[in-house]
């Protein structure tokens, strides 16, 4: 395991709600910009992105939509639906409601069948990890969640924001337990500026499972699809001197998996400094938890000293963390 950046995250730097609730437009968040070539860190608004990129650069975005993946199962239990597995079962996490959010390790009564709203049953078929279970719902999961679920939220959320607050402008395909949030600042006007600048935007799909927010765990297997046209443009961009910029760690996982294996399926690849990068040159991402697996992924882009400098600057300048917070553009 590679070393990761460690730092204390002050509670006031945890964004409790979307930028719109802070009086900012979607694209009005801040953007820390770091460059591996020069070892420098600079401070921008997200709307500076088109000018910071170059014609011929390729942005790769995740078109997964966020599901209302939390289902209240009674006064003492809420179930988070994380990831659909190839056999039709789901990885789920039973949690204990706590105020507006919840904490891990909700009670699982024998015989491990949880009654859910609407007269539906969730059968836990076995433990997957300390927190997660394999489970089978008695009805189709996506329509059920869209009717009965709520967005997953953690303790830093000030209140229950509507599902639309958890969608990016690129979200088209239902399936993420948590928002692929690096793309949240994109607005239609920024996309227009990028297009007129000569920066191309192409899609991949990777449904995000529940994050490893409360434990230093690796990400779970996730379902991904890199369309053939996207794979071709990634290849063309790298051969013609442009840069492939992943919008979010999910896109890094999808593209790096496709560069090593099939273009669609379930991936268990965990990108780190040790795996290196075969397809991606740069990353736009949020600000990540201390010691998280995401930080190990960031170490594939920047050497440890620069990464530490980025996070020191982000803390000292009051950048905001989590899905509604500020972003970080990591350039080669």
């Amino acid at each position, binding site marked *: 395991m590679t070393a990761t950046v460690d730092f204390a995250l002050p509670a006031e730097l945890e964004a409790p709600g979307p930028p719109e609730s802070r009086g900012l437009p979607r694209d009005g968040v801040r953007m820390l910009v770091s460059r591996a*070539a020069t070892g420098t860190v600079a401070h921008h608004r997200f709307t500076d992105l088109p000018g910071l990129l*170059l014609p011929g650069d390729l942005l790769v975005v995740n078109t997964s939509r966020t599901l209302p993946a939390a289902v209240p199962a009674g006064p003492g239990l809420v179930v988070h639906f994380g990831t659909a597995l190839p056999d039709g079962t789901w990885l789920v996490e039973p949690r204990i409601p706590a105020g507006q959010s919840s904490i891990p390790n909700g009670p699982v009564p024998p015989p491990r069948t949880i009654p859910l709203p609407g007269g539906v049953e969730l059968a836990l078929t076995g433990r997957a990890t300390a927190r997660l279970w394999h489970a089978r719902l008695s009805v189709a999961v996506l329509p059920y969640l869209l009717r009965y679920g709520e967005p997953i939220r953690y303790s830093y959320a000030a209140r229950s924001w509507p599902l639309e607050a958890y969608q990016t402008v690129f979200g088209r395909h239902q399936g993420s337990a948590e928002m692929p949030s690096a793309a949240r600042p994109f607005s239609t006007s920024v996309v227009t500026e990028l297009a007129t600048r000569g920066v191309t935007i192409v899609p991949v799909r990777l449904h995000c499972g529940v994050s490893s927010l409360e434990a230093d765990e690796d990400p779970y297997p996730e379902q991904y699809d890199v369309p053939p046209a996207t794979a071709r443009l990634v290849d063309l961009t790298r051969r013609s001197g442009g840069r492939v910029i992943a919008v979010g760690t999910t896109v890094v996982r999808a593209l790096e998996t496709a560069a090593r294996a099939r273009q669609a399926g379930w991936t268990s690849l965990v990108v780190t400094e040790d795996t290196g990068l075969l397809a991606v040159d740069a990353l736009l991402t949020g600000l990540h938890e201390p010691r998280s697996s995401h930080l190990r992924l960031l170490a594939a882009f920047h050497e440890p000293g620069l990464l530490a400098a980025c996070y020191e600057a982000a803390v000292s300048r009051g950048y905001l963390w989590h899905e509604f917070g500020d972003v970080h553009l990591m350039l080669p």
Partner: protein
Amino acid sequence: MKKALITGASRGLGRALADGLAAAGYALVIDARDAGALAATASAIRAAEPGADVTAVPGDVTDPAHRSALHQAAGRLDLLVNNASTLGAAPLPALADYPLGELRAAFEVNVLAPVALVQLFLPALRERGGAVLNITSDAAAEPYSGWGGYGAVKAALEQASNVLAAEEPAIRVWWVDPGDLRTDMHQAAFPGEDISDRPLPSSVVPALVRLVEERLPSGRYLAADLVPA
């Protein structure tokens, strides 16, 4: 303090880039054939940027002794700008009538001299993670009638840059098309024409400074791409 060598710095794009790099805090070694014009450039830069470190070394880049003098004057170097250039025969003849002596001379100035300077400075550039910036033209790729001589030498410079970038991963190698500019060279290509609609050389300096300051990947760039309108 970082140091840059700019050839052909007494006029046009080289002069404007010297102003821009001095403003960005670079120590400069500048070169041009016209000693008087070069000295005036050095004085103007020092006046505009008090404390600027500017060394003027007049001479012809095709002269090995002058190139040695540049190497002596610069010593350690972070950025080599091969800007000095000749249009070749002017007004621009068709290749059918191109005087071969002038074509050979154009290769000397626009290809051999830049490669020779790269050879001299490569050890220093490798050591410091430096960069080479070669000024090129769309004439290197486009079949403009009359531009066969200049186009051929710039195409040669581009491919030398391309291979150098592959051979020298420790440094950056950029070759940049600045676009048409209101310079003496451009006027010589269009004698008697009004070229006042072309932008001033200073207009592309922010693009070149961006390339240097952001240490963008080696490759071919259009100045217009680097700074959005």
